[in-house]
């Protein structure tokens, strides 16, 4: 996981620092005018030393504790698309799953053997 670097070791996925973005995008300028316009924003931000304010798309309420690393451990490092959709093909990231508790529990129970549905594993 290059960008969201801590997803495999921590509950938090980790927002990449602007330095991470510029690591690739100092060279990768974009192949279409709309790509180039977006990447220019990154370069401008780096030049002005002002990181962008991302709008949060996937947000769970404060009383839920979701451990990313457990899910990546169980489902594999390529499993981001399972919950987040094909992010690499989205022109702008949207939320494709409801992220509601019923959706979580359904997937837990669908595993073999079923994963815990104990309340205190996520709510404490």
């Amino acid at each position, binding site marked *: 996981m290059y960008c969201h670097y*801590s997803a495999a*070791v*921590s*509950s*938090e996925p*980790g*927002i*990449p*620092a*602007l*330095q*991470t973005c510029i690591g690739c995008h100092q060279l990768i300028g974009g192949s279409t005018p709309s790509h180039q316009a977006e990447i220019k924003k990154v370069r401008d931000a780096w030049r002005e*030393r002002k*990181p*962008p*304010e*991302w*709008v*949060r798309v996937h*947000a769970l*309420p*404060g*009383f839920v*504790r979701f*451990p*990313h*690393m*457990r899910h990546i*451990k169980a489902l594999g490092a390529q499993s981001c698309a399972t919950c987040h959709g094909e992010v690499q093909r989205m022109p702008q990231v949207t939320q494709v799953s409801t992220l509601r508790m019923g959706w979580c529990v359904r997937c837990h129970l669908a595993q073999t053997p079923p994963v*815990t549905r*104990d*309340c*205190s*594993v996520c*709510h*404490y």
Partner: protein
Amino acid sequence: MTESVDRRRFLKVLGVTGAGAAALSACGIGPEPTERLIPYLVQPEDQIPGTATYYATTCRECAAGCGLRVRIREGRAVKLEGNPDSPINRGRLCARGQAGLQGLYNPDRIQHPLVRNANGTFDDIDWDGAIQRLAAKLREAQGKGIVFLTGAEQSSFGDLVDEWMKQVGGRRLSYEPFGFEALRAGNRMTFGTASLPSYDFGNAKYLVSFGADFLDTWLSPVEFQNGFSQAHAFDAGRPASMAKFVFVGPRMSLTGMNADEWVAARPGTEGTLALAMAQVILSQHLARVPADASRLVSVLGAYSPSAVAQAIGIDADTIVRLAREFARSGGGLAVAGGMATQYANGAEIVAAVNILNYVAGSVGSLIKFGADLAIGSTNTFADLTALTSDMTNGRVALLFVHGTNPAHTLPGAFQQALGKVGYKVSFSSFMDETAAACDMILPDHHALEQWGDSRPRAGVTALQQPVVQPVFDTRPSGDVILKLSGKTGTFQDYLQGKWRTRHPKDFDQYWFDSLEKGGIYGEAPTRTVRLAEGVAKIGFGALAAPAVPDQQVIVFPHPALHDGRGANKPWLQELPDPVSKIAWHSWVEVHPDTAAKWGLATGDFLLLKSSFGAQKFPAWITRSVRPDVLAVPTGQGHTAYGRYAKDRSANAFELLGGEATTYGGRSFIVGATATKTGEHRRIVTTEGSPRERGRGTVEVLGLARAKALHPGEAPFHHEETPEYASDAVAWWAERQHEQAEIGNYKGEQPRWGLAIDLSKCTGCAACVTACYAENNIATVGEELMQRGREMSWMRLERYWLTDEHGEPQGAVNSPMLCQQCGNAPCEPVCPVYAAYHTPDGLNGQVYNRCVGTRYCSNNCPYKVRYFNWYNYAERGGQYEAFPEPLSMLLNPDVTVREKGVMEKCTFCVQRIRGAQNQARLENRAVKDGDIVTACQQTCPSEAIIFGDLNDKRSQVYELAGNPRGYHVLAGLNTKPAITYLARVVAQDTPSHG
């Protein structure tokens, strides 16, 4: 697309009647407000979001110098733990140490330099401007008297100040209000050396404390408590099983409460008792006495038990018995301190106790000179009074104050003297009384924000490093001094320079290793001491009785607030005093006989008037103080020092005089008249009942009975279930469990449990403060605590143990927290399944399901469920518990509860889940010892053990099977997951009322 309203918001709307069209997001209705995420520009190397980084540093809340490990989350310090590498505290931390976080993020910190203007108020000023101004004042004051006053500061910072003072022709004084002048003078009298030795409590076989509150505030409480726990806890595997502890003093402090026997000697006669014991040992040849002790025979001749018994106020037989027990134990340790060394004859009392130790052979074995304690090198109270008189006579043109608050501890005299000083500069982080009287304030960084070191005892150098970025625009005082002295570089450079001289080769690796360990931990060699020449000439006079109608009033240090420095930390204010269980205000301890004479009830105000000052205190009637003595704690009565400390209760220091005793110390006992003012207040106390009354909440065993226990025995009787309830209790629960399909009932999952050994628990309440810190527990304040709304998930219940005459001999302390019952009364009654039983044996509390019916708390027989009656976390709310920046210390792993939600101990479920996650990442199972609850981690006595009761190899499983083990209120068949191990008292027949 309409956003559906969720259940909690729906209920909130129902509750908001007639509120009109409030802004949608303000009352929580409508779509969630957009969150924005701002990334770093450059990723910090040592931080992984969601995980913690730990740094080693040193605690500076008192002079003991315990090592710290600070848990940092995303650049914020969220929890302090003891550093396991430090030989002083061995990974444990007291309540005051835990509360250090509330000093760092205190809302009343001084945020930038201040300078007094012509109107007498403070103006903001920038650092360069302030230093320039100060440099000019420094030039003016040359040759006219420059003084730098610090607290106990045996450190590189202290060295820097000394060097600077030398450079400018000034001098430094270090002042601690509870300095140990009598100990130093007494040691000089007996052994010819004024240093303070180190004490090996862990290997003692018999302990007598003459006033020394080694579990509260004396010298190095965490270290001594840890050692005491090893010696005094019941261990069936040892020949003597436990060391007996006798406390001699006029009032029972926290230390006194843990005694197996309380000898309430008349104030000032503690030394006489020590000499009488020594006389018995010498004359009856009860120990292998060092050869030069023969000089003492003449001195001790006059102190036979029969000659002195009446003066002390006990039987001669008791003295003989104590002496025999002390000598025959083969490892007797006597310590003098606390109140016993704060009388006018304090030094002589120390000398007497030194003689007792010498005669019993403990000097050189349990008492080691060589590894001397640094607090023994502060200046004395006499030096401070000399300074005060210099100040009053205009001989001090420039005064610097750092890390001490003499305007509070020496009110009147020092305050007035300050007015005569030309220019006064404070480095205080807080607007305390001394800073409020100064002309310029250059706020220092908090100890957690800066570099430093300290040498708490010979051989140990504790290193201090910044663990967070500075919260405000403060500067390390070391930097300021270097700038003023015209030197280049920061204090960090200076500190490293000093360390480099110690180890010039491969310095970088050495420095890195020291930072990781938190310091350099060596053992200083012991040096032998012999009796001094003049020991036979010491005049062991007794303390004069006060003039009639005066009462003897003893001023003792509050265990949490100490000399007042803890009063600005709400965790410490809300912490009930271990002896009186009173919080948020001071009190005066009055014996029931005295109270009856005066027609006094608990809560009635008494005006105490000494020849130095007068203050009024509400009375607390208790048998834990002698009838002819009144006792008041220090710590409250601030006139400045922030919102939690200011204008609260009374300042006991006002009652004391400003004259030094012959040994250079201060007398903390004073004669005062006591008159009822007619006012009354309800005291703020968490005490339910002073006595246990056989209800099954605590069990106590006599030593003989405890030694006779064999495995599998169940010595405790519990209440018979009444007929009408026996079906419900026995039948229903078992049927439920038979049908349980999941989790720990089938042995498939862990069953988390706790074992608490009451023979180790001293009642110090470090666990309570650690729990507040770990679990984001709100402090509710004085008014709500008076109404019983305190939120402490863990409380300490203190029950007096009495002898056959009903006189208290000590107390048993029982930590009471959610018992995580296997058959919990709170679970079936929750209408929304917020209280339920988890597969791994916890009684779960799901905050987002809770609607606040409070039926669970109603049904709980232990009363360990706490309800959020108000919104304690609300910014700007009436009972706001975390005003900015105090909210920075909140633990991000634990939900902050809002109004209407029930909460309780969760066995630190966040730590359990964290360890389980970590184990899964590492492809292994969770092992015993991976999970440590906050209370367990901090307990200096190591009284609490957490683990998996289904793991037969775990420590907690072994302890749960111990014959001393019992469940609280066992007759109710709640099947708690917590096993308490009975307190063992080294008496034959302890009764508890």
